[in-house]
């Protein structure tokens, strides 16, 4: 096989490359671990700027709460998130799930500072953002967050 270097400088080359390879694998492992831990967590937010109107939402707000899910075409966990949230709203009364295509709503995406999909924004009954989950959230965590919201 043609390796692109002579026997002599291949040894030096392989040393440098092995170092690069090790750094890439370490960095990717660290990032991947952080990513796995942080994605899907529901974080409380008190964002008055991120109030939604029903025009922006494309439909009326839920009587108690609204889960606004931003999705995109090249997004694997968006489908799973959609199924989870649909399942939750079918069980919890007065909560609505609205899925928005991020790509065709870029102004909204910018205003809310959404960087990746899926991002789910929890709105209270007035349309104010109270929590946010980046990545696919767990079903039980969504239910917990909604319970807390309804106690306020």
């Amino acid at each position: 096989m043609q390796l692109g270097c002579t026997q002599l400088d291949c040894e030096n080359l392989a040393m440098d490359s092995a170092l690069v390879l090790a750094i890439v694998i370490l960095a990717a492992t660290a990032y991947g671990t952080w990513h796995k831990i942080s994605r899907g967590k529901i974080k409380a937010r008190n964002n008055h700027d991120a109030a939604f109107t029903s025009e922006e939402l494309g439909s009326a707000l839920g009587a108690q709460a609204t889960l606004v899910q931003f999705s995109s075409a090249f997004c694997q966990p968006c489908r799973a998130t959609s199924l989870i949230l649909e399942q939750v709203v079918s069980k919890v009364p007065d909560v609505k799930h609205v899925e928005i295509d991020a790509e065709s709503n870029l102004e909204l995406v910018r205003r809310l500072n959404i960087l990746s999909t899926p991002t789910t924004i929890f709105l209270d009954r007035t349309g104010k953002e109270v929590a946010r989950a980046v990545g696919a959230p767990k079903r039980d965590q969504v239910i917990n967050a909604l319970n807390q919201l309804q106690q306020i």
Partner: protein
Amino acid sequence: MSAPQLIDARGPRIMAIVTFFVLGLALLVHSTLLIVWQLLAFATAAIFTPPQGIYGRFYRAVIQPRLKGPVPSEDIRPPRFAALVGTVFATLALAGLAFGIKPLFTIATSFALAAAFLNGFFNYCLGCETYLLFVRLRNRHTPDYEI
């Protein structure tokens, strides 16, 4: 959104692990042959969809019949998007080798390698993390409301 075409979700994971080993070896020995091979694998997956690409055909012929248990399904578009990004990086890596620009080869291969590693071992979704940012950058002329 319209119903997406679904494929066996294990395929892209295994393809990503194969890609990781091919690119790792290519990085170690600066092999033009391996980069060309991987570029072909990426490009065929991007153009003809992942199951019709080189690795996809190998997966369906050799690996899939031997796997047992329920078949998880996934949308075909995210792995196809990842293959397109891979095609771009493999092309850059090849250009780096062809024109003797070593840093270009090293950086482009490293990014593709990291993405394949994350995809294969962490089930990382490249499209989720990068596509919206790409669209936002492409359309940055529209009014910007930063919070």
